């Protein structure tokens, strides 16, 4: 792995904006390697540094410390117009005084590509984004979705090795967004270009990416494929940011062979993999996804939970179950085949957590 050349690499990159006490540390010692032909997503809440990292790759900002490498070459000193990456901006940034055709051709013109080649390339790009026939329109005459596709075509026309996308779908409405997700994924697979995609929408990240880097406050919290990120969050932030999670304080009752048995204050027992710092008798935080908890009708009230809330959401019902020590659990259970919820408010339920369902988190 170490000898394989990455499409994009960031090494110990730090970016500080401003000076003195008001300085903002947008990126804090970040290192990542993005592989060729990969759909790589930077995911996180606003202000986490994902857009800053993208702009460092594009060359629109320079790192305060550390280095950016493209295909193994240091590019820190190169301005954006000398890097072979292209960007799809969040606001599309289409040149309002040029036609669609002129916009798409712009990068090619700037690089001095032969005029005879430009025409066919533009036509090819328009076909790729399904906008053939729109050559002579102006950006102001296009809908949001069409503008976005022109922005895409404009960037792709230059056959970059890496395409950077800065929250390109955030301005679109839901239906369009879902359609574009598919289109973008297909485009990436068809062209084989490395996509670096920035978003704050976890559903987007999970559906489109080969790998995701979850970021918060200038640091990478976790890097992995969507399955890993969802099933095996390493810390509270990732567990919380992706999907819904229950956080349970528990005490380690026994520890052997990397497996731990923990007991929560409400009397529930959990079998899970132990993290390195776990000690017998020590307190840990467990993350438990609502859909991994099994509920059954309780015969007696001892050790049972009570359903205090039920919200119907179509395929499932979200329950809030109150436990013996007044703590609550979010549980999601698929509804019965006739569509009705399995439990009602006030029901006593027995709670079963399968082995491995809970994850021990790094504090």
């Amino acid at each position, binding site marked *: 792995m170490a000898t394989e050349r990455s499409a994009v690499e960031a090494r110990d990159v730090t970016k500080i904006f401003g000076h003195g006490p008001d300085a903002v540390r947008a990126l804090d010692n970040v290192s990542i390697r993005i592989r060729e032909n990969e759909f790589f997503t930077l995911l996180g809440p606003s202000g986490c540094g994902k857009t800053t990292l993208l702009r460092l790759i*594009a*060359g*629109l900002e320079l790192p305060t410390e550390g280095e950016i490498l493209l295909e193994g070459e240091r590019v820190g000193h190169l*301005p*954006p*117009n*000398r890097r072979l*990456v*292209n*960007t799809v*901006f969040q*606001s599309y*940034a289409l*040149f*309002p*005084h040029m036609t669609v055709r002129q916009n798409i051709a*712009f*990068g090619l013109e*700037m*690089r001095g590509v032969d005029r005879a080649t430009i025409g066919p390339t533009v036509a090819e790009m328009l076909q790729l984004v399904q906008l053939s026939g729109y050559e002579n329109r102006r950006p102001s005459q296009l809908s949001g979705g069409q503008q976005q596709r022109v922005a895409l075509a*404009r*960037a792709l026309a*230059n056959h970059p090795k890496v395409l950077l996308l800065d929250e390109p779908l955030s301005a679109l409405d839901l239906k369009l967004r879902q359609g574009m997700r598919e289109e973008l994924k297909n485009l990436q697979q068809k062209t084989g270009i490395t996509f670096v995609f920035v978003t704050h929408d976890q559903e987007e990240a999970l559906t489109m990416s080969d790998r995701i880097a979850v970021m918060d406050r200038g640091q990478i919290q976790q890097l992995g494929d969507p399955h890993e990120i969802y099933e095996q969050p390493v810390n509270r932030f990732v567990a919380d940011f992706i999907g819904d999670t229950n956080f349970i304080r528990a005490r380690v009752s026994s520890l052997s062979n990397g497996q731990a048995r923990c007991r929560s204050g409400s009397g529930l027992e959990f079998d899970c993999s132990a993290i390195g710092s776990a000690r017998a008798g020590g307190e840990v935080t467990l993350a438990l996804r609502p859909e991994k908890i099994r509920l059954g009708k309780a015969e007696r009230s001892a050790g049972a939970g009570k359903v205090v809330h039920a919200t119907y959401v179509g395929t499932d019902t979200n329950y809030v179950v109150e436990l013996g020590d007044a703590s609550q659990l979010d549980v999601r259970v698929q509804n019965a085949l006739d569509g009705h919820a399995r439990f009602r408010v006030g029901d006593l339920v027995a709670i079963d957590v399968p082995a491995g369902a809970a994850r021990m988190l790094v504090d």
Partner: protein
Amino acid sequence: MADVAIRRRAQRRLDLRYQPGFSTLAILCLVMLYAPIIVLIVFSFNDNRSVSVWTEFSSDWYVAAFRNEEIRAAAWISLKLAGIATVVSTVIATAAALATTRTRAYRGITAAYLVINQPLVVPEIVTAIATLSFFALLRSEAGIYFGFGNLVLAHTVFCILFAYMPIRARLEDMDLTLEQAAADLYATPWQTFRRITLPLLVPGIAAGAMLAFIVSFDDVIITVFVAGPGETTLPIYIYGAIRRGITPEINAISTVVLAVSVLFVTLFYFISRR
């Protein structure tokens, strides 16, 4: 009919932003602003010499004014002066706007603003006598005398501000990411400026040029003090004529000058709307 009016008044009362009497005052204001000018224009077409008794329509005064050698010479000087001052001041203002807009505050930017805004903070009479003194000093002590150039320099200086403002406004409205996108698409800084920034800036520059022209064409005070012999501009001519006595030719020539201003302001508005 009555209840239509009542309903309309009720509708107006319901309008949250209605304030009693404001519309009346506003219209009154507008009337006040235009009434004297309209009187002037109307009476410039009056047949007799009086400026308050209307006899019949006549364009005699315009003909007389047009035939007047002095007026023609003055008009030419005004146009020449305004033309040169506009071109020079617009170029300078464009450069200044590029340097002071869309950057974070840097050392000296406040000072630069103060300098550029000088015509607004210094009353024109003070600028006029200061400029006069400066040129007189240059001439007497250093023998430097630019002739007509003195007037051009004085005009250029106060025109810079008026050309600057629309250009700056246009630049601030411009989407910063457009230039980033150009760089992302391999344009060098010069190409970015030439292909993206400048074309988008042109309406602002044109608007600035319009304003600069009007301000130079209409200037009185500074021109009166700085102009030398043979440099009578149209406003100076009118000023002298008024002091000599009110004649209908003044009305005619004033209307023409007004028309020129109106023309350029209208052009300005059209350009700004784009």
